[in-house]
């Protein structure tokens, strides 16, 4: 009997006996662990708990996001001043030999981006067309003919092999895909292969499936936030995402189907991941997974390969976030919402309206990234769901929270009392005996 089973049948039993009666009627508990399934205390739902206003929710212009329009939202002059201050601070921190801001820290952060920079929207590793793999046609054989269930298993196994922490599949909701990006329209047409020209990028109508993948970030880095060490952790997540989507897309093409790989480009990875049951939307307006909390990056692949789909999940996260608010309290820029309930009221043009969420003031967040000189992941580091899971107490807390969300306040207070979420010393990071890529690949795998 391993630790998980001990907990499941032993300590967890009493807690769940009491909490079982709180299960919503529309939810069905996942009765057994399936390969790459979620933990047993995660429930699956017919549809996401967060409402969508179909009259409002529509495709979003990528240029409206905070990276595309920062100067417009923040003000040209203020932005220039911000960048000037950032440069001065960088030099000052370097002179002071401040831990986390030394040359080696900055070099590590920049170097961690190196694979990520090999791809972009329909470019390089994220090309919408095959790179070099031989198609079944070229091999003189039929394309893959397995059932959707068998194909889904293949995809999940291959995704894990290429570095995915979790994988989910959903029917593509086209409203999650941007209407335009980098001055090009993104359209769906009845074509055989995806293509791009000077004016538009064309996704074939037949690409009706979306594969969502999560990539675990190195928690030891993120806990040093805000420093260049934590920035390196985010960058490592993006670089691994790049490798993952490039490999998985080529694999799908090798089976004889179309695959469009994407990381943060093309559309909302969070929305697709929610539909595919990778997690719930947290107060940070980002995905929180039951296994890794917010310690994940997301990516996606659109495909025409027929796949068995997953369903949205519920592990009591929204109820937890309603009480917790640790991320909002810890956020140095004050960009996160303190509202009790998620609602439809957006903070600005950078938010896509028409769905329920805790919307964030993204320009404030990005301004702090510049101000800190090295980005920021404090909201991820302090989240009580961000844990290394080396002790069963975390499983006990997660399980009990999922079934008895009214205990969120107590768990949040205990989390703080036990010192979780405190910034770790960046100079100590260099002395750690880190696993490969800085992540524990056995975490959350049962």
């Amino acid at each position, binding site marked *: 009997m391993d630790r998980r089973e001990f907990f499941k049948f032993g300590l967890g039993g009493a807690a769940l006996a009491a909490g079982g009666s709180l299960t919503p009627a529309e939810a069905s508990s996942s009765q057994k662990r399936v390969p790459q399934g979620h933990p047993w205390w995660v429930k699956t739902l017919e549809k996401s708990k967060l409402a969508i206003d179909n009259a409002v929710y529509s495709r979003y212009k990528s240029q409206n996001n905070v990276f595309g329009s920062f100067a417009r939202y923040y003000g040209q002059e203020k932005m220039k001043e911000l960048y000037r201050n950032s440069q001065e601070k960088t030099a000052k921190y370097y002179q002071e030999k401040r831990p986390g801001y030394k040359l080696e820290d900055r070099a590590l952060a920049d170097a961690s981006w190196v694979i990520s920079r090999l791809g972009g929207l329909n470019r390089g590793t994220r090309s919408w067309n095959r790179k070099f793999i031989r198609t079944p046609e070229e091999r003189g054989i039929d394309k893959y003919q397995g059932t959707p269930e068998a194909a889904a298993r293949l995809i999940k196994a291959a995704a894990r092999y290429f570095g995915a922490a979790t994988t989910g599949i959903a029917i593509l909701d086209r409203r999650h895909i941007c209407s335009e990006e980098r001055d090009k329209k993104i359209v769906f047409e009845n074509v055989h292969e995806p293509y791009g020209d000077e004016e538009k990028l064309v996704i074939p109508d037949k690409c009706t499936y979306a594969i969502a993948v999560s990539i675990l970030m190195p928690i*030891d880095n993120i806990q040093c936030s805000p420093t260049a060490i934590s920035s390196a952790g985010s960058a490592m997540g993006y670089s691994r995402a790049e490798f993952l989507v490039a490999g998985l897309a080529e694999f799908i093409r090798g089976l004889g189907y179309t695959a469009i790989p994407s990381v943060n480009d093309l559309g909302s990875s969070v929305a697709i991941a929610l539909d595919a049951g990778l997690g719930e939307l947290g107060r940070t307006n980002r995905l929180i997974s039951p296994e890794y909390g917010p310690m994940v990056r997301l990516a996606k692949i659109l495909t025409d390969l027929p796949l068995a789909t997953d369903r949205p999940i519920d592990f009591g996260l929204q109820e937890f976030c309603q009480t917790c608010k640790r991320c909002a309290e810890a956020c140095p820029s004050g960009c996160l919402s303190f509202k009790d309930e998620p609602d439809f009221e957006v903070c600005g043009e950078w938010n896509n309206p028409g769905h329920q969420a805790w919307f964030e003031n993204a320009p404030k967040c990005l301004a702090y990234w510049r101000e800190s000189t090295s980005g920021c992941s404090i909201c991820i580091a302090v989240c009580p769901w961000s844990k*290394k899971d*080396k*002790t069963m107490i975390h499983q006990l807390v997660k399980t009990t929270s999922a079934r008895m969300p009214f205990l969120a306040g107590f768990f949040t207070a205990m989390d703080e009392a036990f*010192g979780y979420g*405190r910034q*770790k010393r960046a100079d100590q990071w260099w002395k750690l005996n880190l696993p490969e890529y800085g992540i524990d690949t056995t975490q959350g795998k049962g």
Partner: protein
Amino acid sequence: MTEKKIHSTFKIRKRPWYAWLLWFLWLLWIIFWAEVSIGSWKETEPRAFTIAIAIFAVSFLGGVLIWLKGTLKSRKLKS
């Protein structure tokens, strides 16, 4: 002449069922906090480790003291 002993004897003191249940819960409690202490050490969470090891130590010593007190009391009664 004394006869040489060929058996070892374990003596289990008679206790009410709830006393056994309490000792069992105590055992689970200290195992739990020992596990949390080790896990927190591996997670490099110094404060969580300190709290967990303190709870473990206090609970362990408390249990040992109660056991000693009970044993001494029963020996006194016998003598």
